[in-house]
């Protein structure tokens, strides 16, 4: 880890009319660090994630990202072209519902290859070889490369979505409930895979989840949100083992014990 943050967020707020989406969120994210944002539904996690990934413009506040050339650039002052370019090269976005992040009517190989083609790769053989490599890394059989994601199970779709996002070697990945809607054994394998990839590639990630187990497994640091505000933040182990805010205590004690 370097001593310069990758993403610097300061006093970020998003209002929907008079309703609060998220309010006054400030944090830094360092390269290679995984930050979990937890909270119940409606607490503003997804709004925050959409603002951070510049899919949504905040009402106030700033977020700056350190580009590959080392310069810190303010996200909301970039042109849309630059933001979209960032989104398909240096960033990834893993949606909760894979259908939102995949092209369901083109083959798995093309889904993985799209980003490569978008940045100018024009060699079919190389694109395909990279797609094969990435499919194997996310444990999808090579002979499924020409199948459409429609023919895939939920877990496979999610892994395909991850491959599609990571193929350009991004430095920052946003994940919105990456294990939502999957059964527990599939969840466990996906988490294992994600943890491996994040460590191997040195990815920084912002993971939104309501599942504290996901946060514990994946993240080094977490933020707890309630009603659009951050009520507690700190090292994941510390927050989960010694929650300070009453809401966090409630959240931690609500985990079902099997």
């Amino acid at each position: 880890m370097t001593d310069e943050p990758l993403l610097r967020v300061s006093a970020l707020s998003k209002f929907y009319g008079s309703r609060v989406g998220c309010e006054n969120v400030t944090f830094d994210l360092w390269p290679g660090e995984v930050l979990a944002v937890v909270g119940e539904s409606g607490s503003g996690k997804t709004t925050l994630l959409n603002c951070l990934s510049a899919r949504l413009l905040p009402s106030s506040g700033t977020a700056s990202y350190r580009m590959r050339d080392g310069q810190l650039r303010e996200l909301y002052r970039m042109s849309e072209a630059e933001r979209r370019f960032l989104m398909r090269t240096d960033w990834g976005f893993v949606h909760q519902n894979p259908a939102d992040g995949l092209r369901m009517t083109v083959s798995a190989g093309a889904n993985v290859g799209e980003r490569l083609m978008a940045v100018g790769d024009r060699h079919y053989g190389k694109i395909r070889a990279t797609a094969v490599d990435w499919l194997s890394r996310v444990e999808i059989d090579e002979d499924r490369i020409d199948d459409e994601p429609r023919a895939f199970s939920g877990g496979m779709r999610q892994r395909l979505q991850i491959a599609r996002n990571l193929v350009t070697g991004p430095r920052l990945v946003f994940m919105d409930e990456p294990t939502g809607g999957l059964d527990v054994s599939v969840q466990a394998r996906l988490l294992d895979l994600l943890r491996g990839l994040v460590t191997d590639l040195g990815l920084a990630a912002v993971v939104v989840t309501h599942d504290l187990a996901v946060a514990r497994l994946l993240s080094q640091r977490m933020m707890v949100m309630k009603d659009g505000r951050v009520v507690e933040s700190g090292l994941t182990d510390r927050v989960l083992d010694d929650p300070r805010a009453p809401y966090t205590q409630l959240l931690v004690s609500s985990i079902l014990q099997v």
Partner: protein
Amino acid sequence: MTDIATYNFAYLDEQTKRMIRRAILKGIAIPGYQVPFASREMPMPYGWGTGGVQVTASIIGPDDVLKVIDQGADDTTNAVSIRAFFKKVANVAVTTETGQATIIQTRHRIPEQPLTAGQVLVFQVPIPEPLRFLEPRETETRKMHALEEYGLMHVKLYEDIARHGRIATTYAYPVKVEGRYVMDPSPTPKFDNPKMHRSPALQLFGAGREKRIYAVPPFTDVVSLDFEDHPFEVQTFDQPCAICGAENVYLDEVILDDRGGHMFVCSDTDHCEKRREDGHRGHLAPEAHPVLGKTEPAE
């Protein structure tokens, strides 16, 4: 009482023609860019060339000589009707000879005979957006054009190779115009794509239902998209035209009987006739052949 109410010259009123000409000029200024225009109702159904007819009506003058082809042929319903339409509403000379025409309205072919400077080729376009079947949102496709995000176009070609082992798109093959806009060359066979590249003729595209006009000015680069290891190539035919013996032209398959008999003939009827006049014969050529209309002067 022979005088009935007459149409304005070339059917459209002058204000409409000005509006369409402005769209055409903008299209020429930004090669390959789809210019929205206020498409009018025409006395024909959408899909029959309402866009092309409006473009032709806006640029045609009394001295023009018009040729209309439908899949390369001068004698099919669409071509005959549109030719008759302009003969009636603009009283212009019409022709079937490529070399004689100043304006050629076409549905899905480019004549075999190379076009020359000063000629205008007007394409009838059903769906102007090359990204449409990959991205259904118009707001998104416009943004993609604006930001030059064309990776998706190659996704389609990738899919072709993955499925068929080669790029199987044979018509409406996407091209990049002057290194900037990706354009649908209308459903012409990809055989005709190379003819668009640096053509001395002005090429105009009209989509009536979709309300878009775009253009390729003379001597503009038109490059078909491809992969380095799967380069663009045109269709080849393993036999010459059965009537005129032409090779390296686009051929239509004609069914001769219900026992599997068929022949391949030039899709460009004018080209085929010219060759027969010059004495070329294919293996199924009739002894004598009827001659089509050729040029009919204005009355």
